[in-house]
């Protein structure tokens, strides 16, 4: 067991953390499965609008690797296949009706321990839950033909207003263990689980993993940061990673023999009337989850957290990998002499606003950029929010000049856009580090 005390990083003090109580969603009218949630994946459709589906029916497959299946989390009829620019399929919307489920084989713990690696892979692929397993580098669905150096599970919650693992997985310890037993079959390497002092108790009974303890501000909970400290990813290597809630979902599939679609989400953010956890269906419609009235120009609805989540709205759906919804105020317009304000209510990492004198006061910032794009300023602050031995500015400059070799040398494989999200947040030059990293990942994928 490794103990990692990270000093670098920053917890943005935000209003709107979810109360520790779970409510049941009053109604589920529609859900969606969104191909755009899966980086670089192009779907091959298996349903058409009007088709009736059961919970667990195949909606689409990965066109390049048709073994990877995407199953419906609810029974109902396919309302629409939404296409965006260049006819890219964005989401498959299903109108939910009375529940009926496809039936699969179920497995006990002892049966799982006797499985071969090939069979374990086959079961997971067939379950429709394989997409939950992602790989580094490149943050896309894991390539089942490759064998990873290790599998990482992050049980550390550090993102702003992050849903707490023990709330999401309350009472699902057995499913979690079953899922971990299956994951152990998938790799010849180690199965790493990181916990924090908060989640340690919840994971204490889990066996078959190497446990590590992480402490420190965000992004300590990011799996990329944990990989960097536990077993760095080098050129040519592959690591798989998966969230604890997906592991529990796999366990539930194995024990019940049905596609498990019930999920707990955290409803957070300063613009909600009340913040709490809600038990709903995977891919739920935002307006089913939230009873605060939402207007597009008043509130920003984010599937995920404020740093890395996707913008959506009341008529949108929660993403596959997301376990929370954040609602924050939209930008209200131009502010007079914003740059000389004293900043009692400013949300800032820098010691340039009076709000720094009361660091415990939580703020409710809007979606204002608070400035315009400028050239990089190497103040040394970016390094303070990136707990990795990576030079963020130099890496980004290498990406911008498209120097493939230098990108590789400076650690493009070790980072994902989410790991540098705080760099974008604190940047006085308003540089989009995430977009630049994404650009670098695309360049490397093309090269590979």
């Amino acid at each position: 067991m490794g103990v990692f005390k990270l000093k670098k990083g920053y917890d943005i003090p935000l209003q709107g953390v979810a109360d520790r109580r779970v409510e049941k969603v009053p109604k589920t009218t529609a859900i969606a499965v969104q191909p755009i949630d899966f980086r670089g994946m192009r779907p091959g459709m298996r349903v058409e609008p009007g088709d009736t589906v059961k919970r667990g029916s195949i909606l689409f497959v990965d066109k390049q690797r048709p073994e990877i299946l995407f199953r419906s989390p609810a029974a109902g009829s396919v309302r629409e296949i939404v296409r965006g620019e260049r006819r890219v399929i964005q989401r498959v919307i299903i109108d939910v009706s009375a529940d009926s489920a496809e039936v699969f084989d179920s497995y006990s713990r002892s049966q799982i321990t006797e499985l071969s690696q090939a069979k374990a892979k086959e079961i997971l692929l067939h379950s429709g839950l394989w997409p939950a397993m992602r790989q580094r580098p490149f943050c896309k669905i894991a390539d089942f033909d490759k064998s990873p150096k290790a599998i990482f599970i992050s049980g550390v919650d550090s993102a702003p207003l992050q849903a707490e693992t023990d709330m999401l997985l309350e009472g699902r310890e057995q499913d979690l263990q079953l899922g971990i037993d299956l994951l152990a079959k998938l790799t010849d390497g180690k199965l790493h689980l990181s916990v924090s002092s908060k989640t340690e108790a919840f994971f204490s009974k889990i066996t078959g993993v190497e446990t590590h303890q992480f402490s420190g501000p965000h992004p300590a909970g990011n799996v990329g940061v944990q990989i960097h400290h536990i077993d760095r990813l080098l050129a040519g290597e592959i690591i798989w990673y998966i969230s604890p809630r997906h592991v529990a979902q796999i366990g539930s599939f194995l024990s019940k023999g049905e596609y498990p679609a019930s999920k707990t989400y955290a409803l957070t953010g300063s613009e909600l009337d009340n913040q709490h956890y809600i038990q709903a269906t995977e891919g739920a419609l935002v307006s089913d989850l939230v009873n605060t009235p939402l207007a597009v120009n008043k509130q920003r609805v984010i599937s995920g957290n404020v740093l890395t989540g996707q913008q959506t709205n009341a008529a949108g759906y929660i993403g596959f990998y997301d376990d929370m919804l954040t609602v924050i105020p939209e930008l209200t317009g131009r502010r007079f002499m914003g740059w000389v304000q004293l900043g009692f209510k400013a949300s800032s990492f820098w010691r340039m606003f009076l709000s720094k004198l009361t660091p415990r006061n939580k703020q409710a910032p809007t979606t204002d950029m608070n400035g315009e794009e400028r050239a990089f300023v190497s103040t040394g602050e970016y390094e303070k929010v990136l707990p990795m031995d990576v030079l963020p500015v130099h890496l980004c400059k290498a990406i911008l000049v498209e120097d493939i070799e230098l990108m590789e040398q400076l650690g493009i494989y070790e980072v994902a856009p989410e790991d540098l999200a705080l760099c974008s947040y604190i940047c006085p030059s308003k540089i989009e580090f995430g977009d630049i990293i994404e650009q670098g990942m695309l360049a490397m994928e093309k090269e590979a």
Partner: protein
Amino acid sequence: MKFLERFLNNMDKTLSQGPFKVFHPLFGAINTMLFTPGHGTTTGPHIRDAIDMKRFMGIVIFALIPSIMVGSYNVGAQAGVEGLFAAFMFGFLKLLPIIVVTYAVGLGWEMIFGHINGHDIHEGFLVTGILLPLTLPPTIPLWQVAVAVSFGTVIGKEVFGGTGMNLLNPALTARAFLFFTYPGNISGDGVWVALDGFTGATPLAAAAAAPGSAVAALNSAGFTLNNMFFGFTPGSVGETSTIAILIGAAILLITGVASWRIMLATLLGAYGMALIVQYFGGDAVGGMRTLPAHYHLVMGGFMFGAVFMTTDPVSAAGTNAGKWAYGILIGVMVILIRVFNPAYPEGMMLAILFGNVFSPLIDHFVVQANIKRRLNYGK
């Protein structure tokens, strides 16, 4: 307020095209200074830090206020003006035209290049435009200021691609230009006191000319450690008062605008080198080699450079380890120039420019070390 905002928004539309487009960069700067740009995030992170370049640079200017105040007073006091306010006004009215010319000429160039490159006037110039006047003697001819600012802005910055891309500190580039083209107006004994025909050597010149102990020479010329610390000696407007500069340094460090690594490294480099030089010196040698190390820190442009010039994030080393090397290099160089180069009793400007030139190389080594650690991982 709403009226003004509407007016600016309309103006923005009008100036985006048509014959007055050349004024758009200047307008853009004023526009976003009066009201925040009002751009929202489109991707994650959906919220952004309240900091922007305007506040960043604004704090540097704020930190310069003590130097401007004390420096102005000192210009008056050196010229023999009696009374606190009268002396300040005398000096301020000497300084103001230099600042006005610097801004007018500099912003003119920024506007032209902003128009060519299609961006607004960037905030960096606000700082350059106040730093340069503070490094000049109060008697500098204004036309020379105009020429120097043009050189500093165009050759020092714009040819590299504008703010953020420049290799050298633009304010120091402009000053160096003056120093080498019109040495008679920026060095020697005749330029520091704003009275015609009145000469007054700077403490550095006095120390350099000392036949024996530099401290004795300083004392006999009326320069004590005290009045050099408080800044009542001849010199460039902003550089004389160490205490005013230190107040500025505190502001820069508390807000995190300037790198404490660079400041500390420069200080340590200079102090260490000065100790070494003095150890091998002695009164028999005379001049600068007899000067105790702490005297160097309060004399000439050292402190002003160490606080406001070395820490320019664009021309300094960008890596944290590199900042140490960069600061120490400058600190060591300034002492070497002051002590061993009889032509220039002041070495700070050249030492910083020297450091600027070397900062990419220093960063290169730090980056290579990072690459090497990655390659050697797990071996």
